[in-house]
């Protein structure tokens, strides 16, 4: 490969790594969904670079070398300074709802983060424009560099704090600059002096870094008396912090009948949000309070059980099981960093727990464990869902939750012994959403076993703060139901539902103005459920693997009502994630128009082949949409297959980019025909439909096979599964660009911009579609996009900027 290709490869590495680093930084100082909103706008820098080059094409082409040097240098500077620039302005996302002036801070964030992408993408676009005959090779470098960057960034998150990462990526940019000027060391030295100096200065001096939002749990906990951070672990799942303070206590939904003490505990936070508490096991009375929460119910019904805890976290529930006499506990926890933190930093507290003889720790994703395990348990416990706020670096994977789907609950039920109990605890929310959706999901899983005794197989209780749901394969016995009644009576907890519940038993201890949850629970268990779920103000239909958004409760039909009751500014607090998603889409749509369509109106004087505009727009838009839809869909499904969101991102993003790069490299050989849409596009469309349907409908089979494999083989098989799809998906872009540069070269950067914008918008859109529909709808749109590309290809022109032609003649034509 020659130098421009290397430059592009290294720069693409830096840009992707920078994007993922930003996701980490913003998830840490703010929240994932705000990070998502800000970065998606910043990524429009790719689209804007296309427009910039399109408008000033000849100007930049005449000064190719100096333009590249300046753009790489500016990209480096803007990356290196990004954290400082974000650090000097405070942004409070909640205030945006009420105070317009906060919008300026948000815009400032956008601009600061937009610049590195604008400059970086300009380098890539300008090189494509200058060397159209090498497009396959250059695009290959671009994709492979990006793919490696996405993996590199994940490794970097282990090595450095989130706010240091952008400085590292800035150094990588300097490497790209030096590579570009490798044959002229003197010029390389001069050109890299300023960027290197500034980056070094920022790295050593750290003038300012973005501060964590004051509303995050960690920010608040740090204000507690004598709060000390006793341990930290970095990683792609988030920055984990263990904090000690005598005033830190945690006892969710504790019974009002409890008069004992609640000991101070060690708190663990991921990306500044609460993960769980660590109880001091040497303090013999410390855990007494655990018996007085709704989550202790199942232990009252089972003596000496064999327990499985899914999402064991900091171990409170594991400890409760041991304390209640469990024979053994299998503790499944996905976040290995968390376990390491517990072991290394608080050895005297938790080491005892996870290393006890009758505790088997499995660092694994819960679904993968369930699919791979043949064991059966007396008790399966799912502790209260705290929700890791950390994202799976740089993607939209956050919102999905494969633990609380009908399929997952069915697997849990399958792993119960004949008389076993499944116990899931959640927060009591007002109005009821998560508790009701949980019941609906479990009820559906039980119905799928073909039972006709559903109403005998579930029980649900609530305190003022938490709800615990029990489910069995067999009916609850009379003595079990009495034990539930007794436990509630003792702790002032209320029955939401037990077999044979009487109206007089409802709403006795913690009284609600109306027993909304109890009434709705009755409806969910009845035959009227479909109508009732439809009429409920929130979306509490059972979650499924093809629509795994358990925490999505918003219904557009209820918006007028919610606005009436809670006020316009109250609504977002029910559904921040969804509100942000919609806001992001609107912003992206408007900005894409501004960047792509609007500039065309200023170019009337320019001689453009107008008939090329619509096919260019459709073709490059469609392949951008198609590519990203498939990629996002694959990331979502692969979480299940490879068993970890981070592995999923690594395998899918890197695998897709690298194999698409290879596809791009061979694109010219694959598409010789000079006229008509080549077969390859039809093959792409067919393969997209075939593969994605396979993953969607064959998911459970693939999952079963994968779960039995060791993790390395799982990852390798994942890449092998993706390779053919990714390979053919890499072909359309260089193919179209080659065709376009043969017919109307001035449109090349515009096409690059369209593709960039379409990719950014469609990184967000699939989540929105899947939340409202299912993954199947996403698949259909991806297939339609490739069909559109197939149809519009002919409009791009007849000729090809062929590699057989001399580079010189092509460049001349471009100039």
């Amino acid at each position, binding site marked *: 490969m020659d130098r421009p290709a290397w430059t592009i490869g290294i720069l693409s590495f830096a840009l992707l790594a920078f994007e993922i680093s930003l996701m980490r930084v913003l998830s840490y100082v703010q929240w994932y969904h705000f990070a998502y909103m800000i970065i998606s706008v910043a990524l429009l820098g790719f689209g804007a670079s296309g427009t910039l080059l399109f408008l000033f094409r000849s100007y930049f082409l005449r000064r190719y070398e100096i333009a590249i040097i300046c753009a790489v240098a500016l990209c480096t500077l803007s990356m290196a300074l990004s954290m400082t620039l974000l650090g000097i302005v405070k942004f409070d996302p909640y205030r945006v709802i*009420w105070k317009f002036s906060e919008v300026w801070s948000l815009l400032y964030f956008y601009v600061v983060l937009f610049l590195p992408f604008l400059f970086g993408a300009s380098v890539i676009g300008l090189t494509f424009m200058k060397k159209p005959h090498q497009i396959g090779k250059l695009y290959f470098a671009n994709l492979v560099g990006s793919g490696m960057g996405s993996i590199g960034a994940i490794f970097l998150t282990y090595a450095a704090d989130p706010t240091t990462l952008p400085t590292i990526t800035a150094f990588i940019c300097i490497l790209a600059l030096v590579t570009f000027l490798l044959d002229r060391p003197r010029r390389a030295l001069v050109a890299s002096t300023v960027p290197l100096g500034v980056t070094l200065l920022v790295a050593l001096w750290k003038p300012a870094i973005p501060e964590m939002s004051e509303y995050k749990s960690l920010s608040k906990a740090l*204000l507690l008396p004598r709060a000390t951070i006793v341990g930290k672990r970095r990683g792609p799942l988030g920055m984990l912090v263990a904090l000690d303070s005598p*005033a830190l206590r945690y006892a969710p939904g504790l019974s009002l009948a409890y008069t004992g003490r609640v000991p101070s505990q060690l708190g663990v936070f991921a990306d500044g949000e609460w993960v769980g508490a660590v109880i001091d096991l040497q303090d013999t009375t410390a855990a007494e309070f655990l018996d007085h929460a709704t989550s202790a119910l199942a232990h009252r019904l089972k003596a000496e059980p064999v327990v499985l805890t899914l999402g064991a976290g900091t171990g409170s529930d594991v400890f409760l099981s041991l304390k209640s006499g469990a024979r053994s506990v299998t503790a499944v926890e996905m976040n290995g960093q968390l376990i390491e933190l517990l072991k290394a930093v608080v050895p005297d507290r938790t080491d005892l727990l996870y290393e006890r003889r009758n505790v088997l720790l499995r660092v694994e994703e819960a679904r993968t464990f369930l699919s791979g395990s043949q064991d059966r348990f007396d008790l399966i416990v799912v502790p209260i869902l705290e929700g890791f706020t950390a994202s799976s670096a740089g993607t939209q994977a956050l919102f999905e939750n494969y633990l609380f789907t009908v399929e997952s609950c069915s697997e849990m039920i399958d792993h119960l012994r004949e008389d076993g109990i499944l116990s899931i605890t959640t927060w009591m929310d007002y109005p009821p959403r998560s508790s009701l959706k949980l019941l609906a999901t479990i009820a559906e899983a039980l119905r799928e076993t073909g039972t006709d005794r559903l109403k005998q197989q579930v029980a649900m209780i609530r305190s003022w703060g938490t709800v615990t749901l029990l489910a069995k394969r067999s009916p609850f016995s009379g003595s079990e139901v009495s034990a539930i009644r007794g436990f509630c009576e003792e702790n002032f907890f209320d029955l939401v539902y037990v077999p044979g519940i009487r109206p007089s038993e409802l709403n006795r201890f913690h009284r609600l103005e109306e027993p909304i949850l109890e009434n709705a629970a009755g409806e969910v268990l009845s035959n009227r459920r479909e109508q009732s779920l439809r009429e409920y103000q929130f979306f509490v239909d059972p979650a499924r693997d093809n629509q795994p958004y358990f925490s999505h409760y918003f219904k557009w039909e209820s918006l007028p009502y919610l606005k009436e009751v809670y006020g316009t500014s109250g609504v977002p607090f029910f559904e921040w994630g969804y509100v942000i998603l919609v806001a992001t889409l609107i912003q992206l749509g408007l900005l894409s128009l501004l960047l792509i369509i609007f500039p065309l109106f*200023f170019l009337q004087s320019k001689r453009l082949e107008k008939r090329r505009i619509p096919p260019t727009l459709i073709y490059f838009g469609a392949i951008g949409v198609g590519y990203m839809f498939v990629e996002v869909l694959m990331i979502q499904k692969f979480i299940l297959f490879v068993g970890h969101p981070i592995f999923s991102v690594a395998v899918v993003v890197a695998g897709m980019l690298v194999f698409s790069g290879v596809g791009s490299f061979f694109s010219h050989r694959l598409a010789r025909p000079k006229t008509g849409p080549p077969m390859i596009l039809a093959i792409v469309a067919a393969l997209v439909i075939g593969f994605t349907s396979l993953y969607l409908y064959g998911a459970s089979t693939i999952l079963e096979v994968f779960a039995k494999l060791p993790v390395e083989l799982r990852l390798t098989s994942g890449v092998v599964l993706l390779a053919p799809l990714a390979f053919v998906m890499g072909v359309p872009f260089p193919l179209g660009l080659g065709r376009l540069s043969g017919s109307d070269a001035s449109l090349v950067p515009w096409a690059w911009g369209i593709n960039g914008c379409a990719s950014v918008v469609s990184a967000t859109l699939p989540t929105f579609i899947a939340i409202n529909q299912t993954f199947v709808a996403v698949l259909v749109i991806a297939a339609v996009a490739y069909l559109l590309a197939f149809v519009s290809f002919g409009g791009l022109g007849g000729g090809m900027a062929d590699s057989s032609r001399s580079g010189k003649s092509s460049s001349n034509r471009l100039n």
Partner: protein
Amino acid sequence: MRPLISYWFLVLIVAVIVVPDHNSPVTDPTAASIIRSFLPQQESEFKRLRHRMVERQIRLRGIKDQSVLEAMRTVPRHQFVPPSSISEAYEDRPLPIGYGQTISQPYIVAYMTELVQVSDQSKALEIGTGSGYQAAVLAEIVDSVFTIEIIEPLGEAAEGRLKNLAYENVQVKVADGYYGWEEHAPYDAIVVTAAAEHIPPPLIDQLKDGGKMVIPVGHPFLVQTLMLVEKHDGKITSRSLLPVRFVPFRRSR
């Protein structure tokens, strides 16, 4: 080229307008600890806003207790908000006061005060002083208020503010609210102003027989429900009260 230049000029202007607003959320409670003085006409304007707030946001929403309405009409809320939020002091929403804390929406303060049913004989305990506004409202009605704040700068600022506003029946302590304030117990009313995931047993212990305790549940910017705990003959009962009436099924509307 001209239209081209004008397009980029436009983009440039937009970019230049995007200047960071350095002054926006300045929430330094120490700056607010000294009582700000306003001109008489400003004070009368605040009074007008306050009366309007009580009428529109509180009385119309169903708060009937005259002593609560009168207290809300009296306490100068604008003295309890950060300087940058003075213009929003009487608006129908919570405001940030720094340290991740808020001064609650006026209606919520009134509702919580009404729920604990206090009189001029009562002794009240507040957990989470924050700005000191809720303590001041209680102080207008009850005999004595004891309030505890865990965050030192907040507690100190509130103490100074309440003192300067001459609330002599309020005592502020910087401490961990978990233990309550044993030496003045039992209390007729306990108001917990921060949403909590558990209710400390010592607080229930320090509640007088027949006393009431109120706790908000939900996001700091949107109180979804208020929890009222009552003690009768040593027996504890609790209730959830929704600040707004929610109808779960659309058919039943």
